[in-house]
């Protein structure tokens, strides 16, 4: 009766994706399902989750499936119960991605607390609320992979996206702490830093620099999180040198640019 953790965690294919209904989240779900994963897909919009689940059922193939869970990451009180439902529904958990994120348009002279706190809630508070139980679970079973989606926006304090950038910088610091906490427990924590990805979140932007599709980004993210080489990785990699340059621009010059 004494259950031990799955003896072959490398082969276990159970994933949780929070923020699964569109953009990179949805692309990651589709990809995981095509590889035969059972994926708990958490998102606000029922109809988009149903679409994902339906597509998974029809493509089937390697036994992949979607467990749709309707949830607004603002509802922290729901998380412990839903997390239990995820574990029960999948029979365990090996892989977790937090892909929920919002970036409303912020005007140059706008200082809107409600709008800003929404970003804190979705990008950061929701991340904390979901990642804590996952980290606790992975800690206790001594295996698992946590993927957090940072951003190149977290590298500098830009004029255009003050709180968005701040939430991403906070996420990245938190992910690093988790990585250091959980390393001894053989839990892998990966920070991916996408550049400009074509998703609903970036639709309102005038132009995207070196854009890639959400599918391509999802593919890269999964590849990186399974390798052992990168703890933090720009998606796509060509953003790494760009980011190094951007980070080294002194503040008094940086504020003159629009990057």
């Amino acid at each position, binding site marked *: 009766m004494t259950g031990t953790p799955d003896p072959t965690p490398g082969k276990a294919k159970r994933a949780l994706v929070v923020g699964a209904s569109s953009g990179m989240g949805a692309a990651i779900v589709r990809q995981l399902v095509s590889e035969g994963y059972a994926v708990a897909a958490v998102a606000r919009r029922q109809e988009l989750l149903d679409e994902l689940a339906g597509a998974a059922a029809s493509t089937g193939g390697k036994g992949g499936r979607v467990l749709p869970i309707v949830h607004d990451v603002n509802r922290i009180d729901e998380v412990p119960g839903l*997390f239990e439902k995820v574990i029960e529904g999948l029979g365990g958990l090996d892989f977790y991605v937090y892909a929920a994120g919002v970036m409303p348009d912020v005007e140059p002279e706008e200082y809107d607390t409600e709008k800003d706190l*929404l970003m804190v*809630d979705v990008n950061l508070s929701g991340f904390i609320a979901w990642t804590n139980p996952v980290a606790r679970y992975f800690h206790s079973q001594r295996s698992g992979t946590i993927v957090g989606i940072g951003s190149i926006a977290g590298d500098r304090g830009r004029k255009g996206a003050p709180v968005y950038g701040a939430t991403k910088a906070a996420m990245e610091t938190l992910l690093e702490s988790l990585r250091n906490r959980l390393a001894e427990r053989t839990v892998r924590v990966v920070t991916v830093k996408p550049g400009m990805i074509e998703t609903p979140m970036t639709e309102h932007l005038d132009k995207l620099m070196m854009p890639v599709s959400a599918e391509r980004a999802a593919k890269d993210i999964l590849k990186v999180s399974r390798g052992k080489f990168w703890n933090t990785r720009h998606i796509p990699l060509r953003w790494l040198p760009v980011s190094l340059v951007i980070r080294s621009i002194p503040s008094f010059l940086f504020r003159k640019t629009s990057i």
Partner: protein
Amino acid sequence: MGTSSHLERRVRAEERPRRGFEYVEGWGMTAGAESRVWKPRSADEVSEVFRRVGAAGGHLALRGAGRSYGDASVNAGGDVLDISSMNQVLDFDEETGVANCESGVTIRDLWRHSLPRGYWPKVVSGTMFPTLAGAAGMNIHGKNNYKVGTIGDAILEMDMVLPNGDGVTVSRESQPDLFHAAIGGFGMLGAITRVKIATKKIHSGEIAVAGVSVANLAEMMAYVDSHTHDADYLVGWMDCFGKGDALGRGLIHHARYLEPGEDPEAERTMTLAHQSLPGSIMGFPKGEVWRILKLLSHDPGMRLLNFTKHQMGKLEQRKGWYYQSHAAFNFLLDFVPNWKFAYGRKPGRGLIQYQVFLPKESALAGFTEVIERQQRLGHTSYLGVLKRHRPDPFLLTHAMDGWSIAMDFAVTPKNKESLWSATNELTRVVLDHGGRFYFAKDAVIGPRTVESMFDEDKLSAFRAMKEKLDPSELLQTNLWRRAFGNSGTFTSAP
């Protein structure tokens, strides 16, 4: 995107009582199960958890810090109540040294509270992380058991939540039966939520220690017996690889508290800063030392390590009396954080601790046979620790006028079956010598062992109390089902 509607629905608080879901395992990593884990913050929330789990027809294990080696706080197929969020020292009487604590207070919390006020807990375990609830439930002992008894002897009063959800206060005066059964009752009778415990006045933050190297077990026991009157602590480390005349060779640590005025710098030594354990061991950061131990974690490696330690013990004896902080002397197990990972971190790997208690009349013969036999069976313990004990008034106590040796056996997927069959043989030897086992350590014994190690009337009194307080068996653990079930065996299956 309409922002205000989202903000209205924002809920920042978790539900109460808090709960999570995780893989809950014993410290030795050989037993575990996934469970819903409740983390109540008050006795009322404990009672609420009892009500909810009971209403759902489930069962519940009580867990402190999870420091029991085996399956004492593991509950396959059920929930777990983790008391560690209730961790406030409620008050501390500086005149008498009596501490009134929520039961999730750890031994570490307690000594860090009492030491700057001039007191040290009367009884501490070899690690400082157990909670008082767990320590009381297991009736833990320290290296001074022969002198001051178990932790139960230091406890004055406890609050409990019974399985029916009612709160009750128990002590030697009010409800003595429940008091003496709950201490050592391994969490089967109710949740301990508050503990009032006496501590000891000390006159220095240090303790005088002498190492005494001995050539074999008989010598070790003779030394300990002749110093029980003048030592405050006596503990023997033993190389279980020793054979023949060298069987049980090792090192005794003999320690005594300092008298008033003996430590001219008492004010400085009684600070928390003076009690900190070393940050590195032989140059390695202590958090990484288990990785080095892991390289030696096999029979030849451990034979070498034990041999080297024995030789170093001889050197230690030459330096005579030396001074050590209370924390450094008492909490040897905490010097190397996560030392258990030396036994492996992968599923199926870990250790069991097998602590054998024997009455003084048969101890030498019994221990000799236990050690010889484990060597013959190819399962030599990597660590042996000898202690002297005395009887106490608790219903299901492991302590007796006698001795114990605690042994650590490595568990691997390959050796598990043969190790369990070896412990079955050893258990028979122990019972033949009138011995007992200890629930905080145990991972193997079955119902027949329980029946033969306790007096029949005490065991049936305990069962009757369980039946009366918890007829539907709300409180259960893997240990309970293993050792008090109907399997009719001396030890469990691996």
